[in-house]
């Protein structure tokens, strides 16, 4: 395996200019981009829509050819067919053949990798189990919801057990639980399986949770690039998290600090991340429904409100909520019921598998239990904590109650 010296992906002066019919320059999508992705790292490609992320990925796969500069993948040009045996790719949307079912879809891509039949079958079943589509495996992919298509897309990207995983917006269309699962899976693949992962997204939370290094693109140019920690940490501040302090104690702390010519910038109560809060709520609600074996209108409203806070994958969340209310023995006819059945079929095995995968170094967590509210349960962050002396940036955020830590100076 190649190590630190040799980059897995290397872009040098990478430029892509889109021209019109008369070969007039129209759009400079990627402009003199230089970056390296090292072995065993999770690299995030960030940027708003139209910043050139997807174009860069397409050049990496040979779907587009660079106008200038070059890009190499695993030491070879993207046109090299053999190198693709070691790449897993999930495009920004899962472009799946609508006339195949999930099993056939995975089998087809497995065949393109020339995986022998028995091994292919084994992998297909395991992947279906992992992404929670086992019960939907016989349904045509064309009937799938966006979230389900996304899961199949992820499964096909993993069928060859790739060394390099290229994921373009992997969590679009997924509900928060699915998102969490994918993030946990990526973390697992990176830490335990030493996969190199390129994650391309404009969902900052995703990138923040799993990436070790990021590049931020804007207008096709790299605006900033570096390690997640080095970009986000603030060396001029210290954060202390304690039990809840009363006013006299706070006064004492202030006095102590003042003696040392330091001042308290902010005091507050830490809040949970919305993601963690949502996962906790869904988990609790699901448990409650299981006990009462019936839906209550109160639960429905609460779930719907939570879902409306998460703009991505609203449809999937809705189906998920419906599924949790579903009597397992009495499936209702109609599309909602189908989607619900799909989601309910998907959730449990998927979580189990992923939890099982992830639970090696991490504290044991029951199926369906989301990571703890401060988001420190993932092995990714555990390692980060072990490896770094300074305080977790998220903790600082909570202490100072700043949602956007990148621009702290404006808030002082």
């Amino acid at each position, binding site marked *: 395996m190649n190590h630190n010296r040799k980059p897995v992906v290397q872009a040098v002066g990478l430029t892509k200019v*889109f021209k019109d019919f008369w070969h007039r320059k*129209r*759009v400079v*999508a990627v402009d003199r981009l230089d970056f390296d992705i090292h072995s065993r790292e999770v690299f995030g490609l960030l940027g708003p829509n*139209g*910043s*050139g992320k*997807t*174009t860069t990925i*397409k050049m990496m*796969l*040979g*779907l*587009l*050819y660079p106008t200038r500069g070059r890009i190499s993948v695993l030491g070879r040009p993207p046109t090299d*067919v*053999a*190198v*693709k*045996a070691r*790449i897993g*790719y999930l*495009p920004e*949307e899962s*472009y*799946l*053949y609508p*006339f*195949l079912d999930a099993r*056939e879809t995975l089998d*087809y*891509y497995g*065949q*393109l*990798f*020339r995986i022998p039949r028995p091994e292919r079958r084994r992998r297909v079943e395991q992947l279906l189990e992992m992404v929670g589509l086992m019960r939907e495996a016989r349904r045509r992919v064309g009937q799938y919801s966006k979230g389900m298509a996304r899961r199949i*897309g992820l499964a*096909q990207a993993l069928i*060859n057990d790739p060394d390099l995983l*290229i994921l373009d917006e992997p969590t679009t269309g997924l509900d928060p639980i699915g998102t969490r699962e994918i993030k946990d899976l990526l973390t697992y693949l990176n830490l335990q399986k030493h996969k190199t992962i390129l994650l391309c997204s404009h969902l900052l939370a995703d990138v923040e949770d799993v990436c070790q290094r990021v590049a931020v693109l804007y207008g*096709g140019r790299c605006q900033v690039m570096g390690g997640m920690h080095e970009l986000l940490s603030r060396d001029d501040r210290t954060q202390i998290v304690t039990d809840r302090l009363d006013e006299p104690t706070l006064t004492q702390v202030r006095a102590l600090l003042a003696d040392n010519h330091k001042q308290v910038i902010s005091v507050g109560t830490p809040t949970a991340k919305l993601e963690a809060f949502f996962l906790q709520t869904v988990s609790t609600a699901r448990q409650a429904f299981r006990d009462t074996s019936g839906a209550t209108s109160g639960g429905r409203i609460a779930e719907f409100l939570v879902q409306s806070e998460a703009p991505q994958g609203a449809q999937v969340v809705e189906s998920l909520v419906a599924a949790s209310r579903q009597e397992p023995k009495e499936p209702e006819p109609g599309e909602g019921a189908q989607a619900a059945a799909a989601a309910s079929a998907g959730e449990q095995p998927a979580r189990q598998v992923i939890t099982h995968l992830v639970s090696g170094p991490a504290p044991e967590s029951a199926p369906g239990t989301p990571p703890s509210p401060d988001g420190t349960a993932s092995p990714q962050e555990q390692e980060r904590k072990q490896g770094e002396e300074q305080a977790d940036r998220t903790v600082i955020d909570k202490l100072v109650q700043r949602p956007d830590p990148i621009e702290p100076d404006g808030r002082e």
Partner: protein
Amino acid sequence: MSHIWAVARHMISEAIRMKIALVFIGVLVVTVPVLPFTLAGDGVTLQSRIQSFLAYSLGLTGTLLSLLTVFLACGALANEIRDKYLFMVVSKPIARWQFVIGKWLGICLLNAMILLCVGLAVWAFTWYLKGLPTYPEDRRAVLNEVITVRYGAKPVEPDFAQWTDARVRQLREEGRLDDVTAAGFEDVRAEIAREVRAQFRTFAPGQVRVFRFDNLLVDRTSEEMLYLHMKPIHPSGVDDVMFPARWQFGDPEDPDTLTMVDEGEFIVQRFHSIPIPARAVNKEGTLYVRMQNLDRQRSFLLEGAESFEVLYNVGTFHWNLFRALSLVWCRLAFLAALGLAASSFLSFPVACMVALMVLFLATASGYLSEAVEMVSPKFGGEDPYGPVLGPVVRTLTHILLWMVPNFSRFDPVGTVVAGRVVTLMWVVQSFISLVVIKGLILGFLGSLMFTKRELAQVTV
């Protein structure tokens, strides 16, 4: 190789599940069984009924499958690009040319499967029709002229060039070529050659002609019959006169052959069959036919290649049908390569249009090359397109017509209907011409364009 097969199988399942193939198969399934009950032919004979069934069912199959192939092949790449399915495929370890080959293979396999099914159905219904009651003469015609496989041997032609030269010399001596210019001479010579050729097949009143048929592959010891197949015509074109003839088969000087003499009258403008015993053919496989025009006033002639032949049985109907369908398959394989090449750089509708145009050109290729010949200035005449544009237009048309195969040369339907053999040689030649040469050129061009092409050509 396994991944190319995967693409091929995927193509087949796409064609079937997306219902394109199903629609065409459906039409065939409905039409082929209905045809034998609806087509009455000339309304009298079973022979014509079977012949029209064969002509329509095979013709329809060829046409429908040509269209199906064009649609499938044009969609195979263009739709994958449009719907971005290729994003996933191209990121897998399969070269683009392998993907193109896989698609081609899939379409060809699908065509082969459909053709096989159609072939079985056609064969079954032909057998059913053959069993229907009819009068003895009609039954004989069915068995000897339709559900049979015959090879038509043409008489050995004399050295026409020598005849022509002799005739030219004669005309020159008579001073009848004195006012012909040097440029016009070739034209005149061609005309004389045509005349000489027609003379070979003309019977002046009372004239005797001997025709030799070589290389007849018949078993002389068998009871098998050969047939002299001829269609006499009267030069004036009238169709109500009789051609009185005396004929002789075999070689009187060769004691080993059976020699028989007979005479009869044949109505003009119709085909007639005279049976010849196999023993009339000599050991070298040569048959001599001596024929005399017994009419004292009228001349008769045998116009066209098939107006005077010796037919003999060379195989079985079902293998002939199989070879005929193989020939149809070669055409479809060419169309598949064409459609794929077109869709490697064009969108589905445009690729379809191009492929259909080529299909049209290929079908009309015979007429087109004739048309091109017609407008070429003959030996010093005026060029209808002018001296500059004319050669350019003709060169381009010739290149186009070379690239576009002449489908009428690869159409076995008429041959099968006439109960004639679709030779293996013909199938092999078609395969080499349509699949190996032209298919490969198209496949190479298509793969090249497909590889050079940026599949994700979108703006950000």
